[in-house]
């Protein structure tokens, strides 16, 4: 699966490192080239403190923890490759990445939205408890593990491509949609141990899932009508963000992975 990233355009080479410029509409543009994450994040915090609502960050080369410590409803556009643990414990911002994301994206994320116009690495959405994550391409190992939900706080993760092993391990809540758009005709998801230890939440997989691919705590079924509507809404948004054809995507049936028990280990012990 290939795609082209939106180009940061005219300001790709703007100014020396760490420089802040402003677009005519007042939008701040931070050049992250060569500066350390601590300075970059501090710069973003200061900008938000002075009232910035939309910030473009260009020339991002692996700086970590973007979006972590800005508990405001601001929009960040990231051009380049953000580093590990982007949106760790994030509460509020909307981040759009024009590039690939690395490991730990959305770790313990609480509120807000992250859109990745590329692929993401391992342990995506670990212990995520709210907000939504949209990845156009594939994700790595142990994604969606130990996600949680409480009341109306239900995290949503939508992945366009496929995933690696231990997907949705220990899952304790939330919804995940795995579209498998990069798979060739007849090709299936390769991940093993999907949903091992799952005890709440739901995973919707487009295409087929072999019972041998999932943990013994996981049941497989067809999504019901209400769930299909949720899936359709997610697909519609995916298409809006990344392109594609909703009807074509929805034409392939989905499998629902669900936990057989809220208490997978209830009978493990001698009292």
């Amino acid at each position, binding site marked *: 699966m290939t795609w082209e990233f939106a180009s940061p355009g005219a300001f790709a080479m703007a100014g020396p490192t760490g420089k802040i410029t402003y677009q005519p509409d007042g939008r701040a543009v931070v050049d992250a080239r060569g500066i350390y994450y601590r300075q970059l994040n501090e710069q973003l915090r200061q900008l938000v403190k002075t009232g910035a609502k939309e910030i473009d960050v260009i020339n991002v080369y692996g700086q970590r923890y973007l979006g972590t410590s800005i508990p405001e409803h601001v929009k960040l556009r990231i051009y380049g490759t953000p580093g590990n643990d982007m949106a760790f414990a994030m509460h509020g911002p909307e981040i759009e990445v024009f590039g690939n994301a690395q490991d730990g994206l959305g770790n313990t994320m609480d509120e807000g939205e992250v859109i990745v116009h590329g692929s993401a690495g391992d342990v995506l959405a670990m212990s995520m408890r709210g907000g939504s994550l949209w990845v156009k391409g594939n994700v790595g190992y142990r994604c969606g593990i*130990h996600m949680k939900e*409480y009341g109306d706080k239900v995290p949503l993760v939508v992945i366009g491509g496929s995933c690696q092993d231990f997907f949705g391990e220990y899952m304790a*809540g939330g919804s995940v949609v795995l579209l498998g758009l990069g798979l060739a005709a007849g090709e299936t998801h390769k991940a093993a141990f999907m949903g091992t230890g799952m005890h709440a939440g739901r995973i919707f997989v487009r295409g087929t899932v072999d019972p041998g691919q999932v943990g013994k705590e996981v049941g497989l079924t067809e999504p019901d009508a209400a769930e299909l509507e949720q899936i359709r809404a997610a697909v519609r948004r995916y298409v809006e963000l990344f392109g594609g054809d909703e009807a074509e995507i929805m034409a392939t049936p989905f499998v629902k992975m669900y936990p057989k028990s809220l208490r997978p280990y209830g009978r493990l*012990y001698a*009292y």
Partner: protein
Amino acid sequence: MSVMKTHLWPEFIIERNDDRCIRCEVCVNQCSFEVHSFDATFNEVFAEDMNCVGCQRCQVFCPTHALTIRPNPTQPRPNANWRVEHLFDLKKQAESGGIVLTGMGNDKPISIYWDHLLLNASQVTNPSIDPLREPMELRTYLGRKPDRVMFHRDSELPGGPVVPVTQMTPLVPIETPIIFSAMSYGAISYNAQKSLMQAAAAFGTLANTGEGGWPREFRKFHDNVIVQVASGRFGVDLEYLNDAKIVEIKLGQGAKPGIGGHLPGEKVTADVSQTRMIPEGSDALSPAPQHDIYSIEDLGMLIHALKEATRYEKPISVKIAAVHNAPAIASGMVRAGADIIVLDGIRGGTGAAPKIIRDNVGIPIELALAQVDERLRKEGIRQQASLLVAGGFRNSGDVIKAIALGADAVYIGTAAFVAIGCTLCQKCYTGKCAWGITTNRPDLVKRLNPDQCTERLTNLLRAWSREIKEMLGGMGINSLESLRGNRLHLRAVGLNQWEMDALGVKGAGF
């Protein structure tokens, strides 16, 4: 399947002195394990010994002291290898097929080195100090200390203002080197956690939330609370992290090194579910590893994620169980950016652990502490992190010996619980604690009056602090800082050479 006749027999015997018993039914009402029952027809109180866990609640509350609860004298043929405990566990497993659970810390006679270490006192050459009349400094600052402190004189003139130029990292003061261990709401009761936080606030020390979240109503104790980030990440959000004084990453626990935790669904009540932010009645699973940490570099990543999330305003602590390679691991932890490191020894308590793990995995805290302190000193990085230790500290003597071995402060859990009622019956995991400590049953939780418990806990802290001052004064020392890592004030009795080498102390007489 037919009902299986149990081959277990009562662990405790209930003896009721009928001359003293007034049929008041206090024992019937106090027992949460359904041992006592009153039969009005015969005006008789009966006891089902089989259910008794030996928690002594009925005996303590019996107004006429009519009850004696003691270990069952019935013994099979004595056998040095096959002790009764082994027989009981075997039979339990034969009848259930399960992992034997237990609560509290290791109860086996694994070398307790505190009992083999003796303190020094001044005689003639160096006067002892009377703490009743002279100032004694117990205040301790937790966090990363700078390698050196640099100042700049602003003016060329003599007497010009001197300003510090060293960038200080956040430090947290505690008024006594004793803090309350990580015990999560859910594993312990609402009132128990409230008592610990209230007492910490009253005395100027700290209490640790454990990994089960932090109820809103307890946020007012924010200046005295350490929050934990464990593999379950229960209740962790930006507000939780920023409300606390210190953030602690939990990687291991002395009672169950290497394994995670399962808070059973029946303990996840509506309130616990809200605090942990998980559905009511579901198992709260803490996986064994933190899945974003597979290396020291990954640990560094989480440490700095938490520093970013708290804007570098709070020390980040990392807790591990005391295991074989603790010194090398601790060195990595400090280099990864930990401002505080915590070691939890094999005698550390728990609300629930597989007994086979509690009793067989880990090492005594004394050895781990001495070796970690030694290693960090040799590497020249000891000042970069405070060193906290946990795991079965019974009195102020144990605490002061730990300071002399190199600890900055000590975590106490079991000792604090004994102060508010616990008798170490080890049945925390049943959720039926008759003392209201490790239960979420409303009728049992209300047995614990938080204000009275706070008084008991602050009394305990005051008493231990006084004793520490007396011992310090006896050594001719007026500041705890001067004793820290000062092993010349310790001598060993009854230890092998390798043990003295590991502890870095001389034998008594030398």
